[in-house]
């Protein structure tokens, strides 16, 4: 089995960490184990291993210390350091500042460009449409094209109604 950090040398140090009722396994070669301070269990954090060295610490500083707690699930920064996983979807808001730099190093970008649930996609499309209509309305007013302005005003009203009926359902 290869070391899961350098992926080159044979893993000699096999670590199992239990956080709550969850088991995490890590296999390291001797050099990487020494480098990550695995021999010193106090200084060792799975979050660092999984997400890159220093990640947990960096995040801790940005969010304001180990005691910041998610109001939804009670998860703390210290828990993240231990587990390398978050507590609930709200944690992404609670720890957003610290996560940002982490995400930058981890992913291609920091903005989602993939699939969006259809209900959200529709409301997003409608909001975009309203913004574009508002620009047209402002232009029509500036040009004193009141007929066009009235048409835009009506369409904005319609679109807003559609949007609110969507979020109500």
């Amino acid at each position, binding site marked *: 089995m290869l070391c899961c950090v350098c992926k080159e040398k044979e893993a000699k140090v096999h670590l199992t960490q239990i956080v*709550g009722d969850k088991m995490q396994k890590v296999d390291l070669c001797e050099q990487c184990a020494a480098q990550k301070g695995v021999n010193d269990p106090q200084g060792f954090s799975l979050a660092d291993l999984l997400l890159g060295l220093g990640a947990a610490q960096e995040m801790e500083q940005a969010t304001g210390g180990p005691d910041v707690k998610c109001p939804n699930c009670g998860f703390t920064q210290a828990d993240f350091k231990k587990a390398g996983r*978050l507590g609930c*979807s709200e944690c992404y808001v609670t720890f957003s500042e610290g996560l940002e730099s*982490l995400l930058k190093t981890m992913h291609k970008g920091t903005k*989602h*460009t993939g699939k969006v*649930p259809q209900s959200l996609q529709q409301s*997003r499309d409608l909001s975009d449409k309203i913004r574009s209509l508002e620009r047209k309305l402002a232009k029509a007013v500036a040009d004193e094209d009141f007929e066009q302005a009235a048409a835009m005003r009506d369409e904005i009203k319609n679109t807003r109604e559609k949007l609110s009926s969507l979020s109500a359902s």
Partner: protein
Amino acid sequence: MNIHEFLGSPSDAARREGPHNKIVMSSRVRIARNVKGAAFPGWAKKAERIRILESLRPAIQSLPQMSECFSESMDNLTILDKNILVERHLISREHAAKNAGSGLVLNRDESLCVMINEEDHLRMQALRPGLQLKQAWQAIDSIDSRLEKKLEYAFNTELGYLTACPTNLGTGIRVSAMLHLPGLVLAEQINQIIQAVNKLGLAVRGLYGEGTEALGNVFQVSNQMTLGESEADIVERLSKVLNQIIEHEENARTSLLEKKPKTVYNHIGRAYGILANAHSISSKETMNLLSLMRLGVDFALFSELDRALVDELFIITQPNHLQRRYSDKLSAEERDLLRADMLRERLKGVTRPKTKPIPAAGEKN
């Protein structure tokens, strides 16, 4: 119905055909989804996990793709059942360690498998034989689109689908293929390939995914980044890289046969010799030697052996599949004896490999 009655036989599983299946054993796309507001499985208390499982399981079972599915809570499966599912690549090792509060829904032809409360509330995967990443993505996309009407997913406009581990954030997608690369291993080019693939931000792993060895020259290649790139782009990028790896593997095989035919025949002949005659053999050695037999089949060196038999042996010689045939708990030593017996029996009718490829029927020579 129990899981063993539900699963297709190893021989059926080995007979599923797909494009490029000489080199690409299977394609897989999995997505991670979570329910808004609820604690992720690793942080949730048992009662909450059970509540989530009880709300998700019926929602998944009612999908049209899941008619006649197998659906079970993990605490109702034995350790052996779970390990068999791991050996079939239907669930992860992590999921096999779960009990009450986690579950599994598997469709009739074993091409769709949903793990409930693994690391995320939902880990949904589509599997296809051979190289069919796009088809696998479309299958899982369509399940997901139906499911999002019944559930409220944890989703954020900026960050996409929210996952327990930030490494899966955004699309929550993991696109992967299982490749058989004996040519690149024998030609000692595999490390270069792995490094090149790693540089492209893709991961190369062993037979059972994260943190496992590359037994039997089988490697899993998958994307690592999930945020900042769309699903279609990730599928497209991985397909391109896979096509290149396939080409390299084919070239390595051709040049091995041209430049070092003796080395190749030696490896394949020895593999046959041991597998067909051993009286005790470990599962690791079996896999490594079966890999060479599979290469021999691809080189048309065996007249009575087809790839499906080798692939079936790949499945049934694994420790838990072997254990399942016997009611008594076997020790590793006992398994090694029974494995060797089985291999000798199944390879009885296979004569030793030729040293020149057998021309295919109808082919002019």
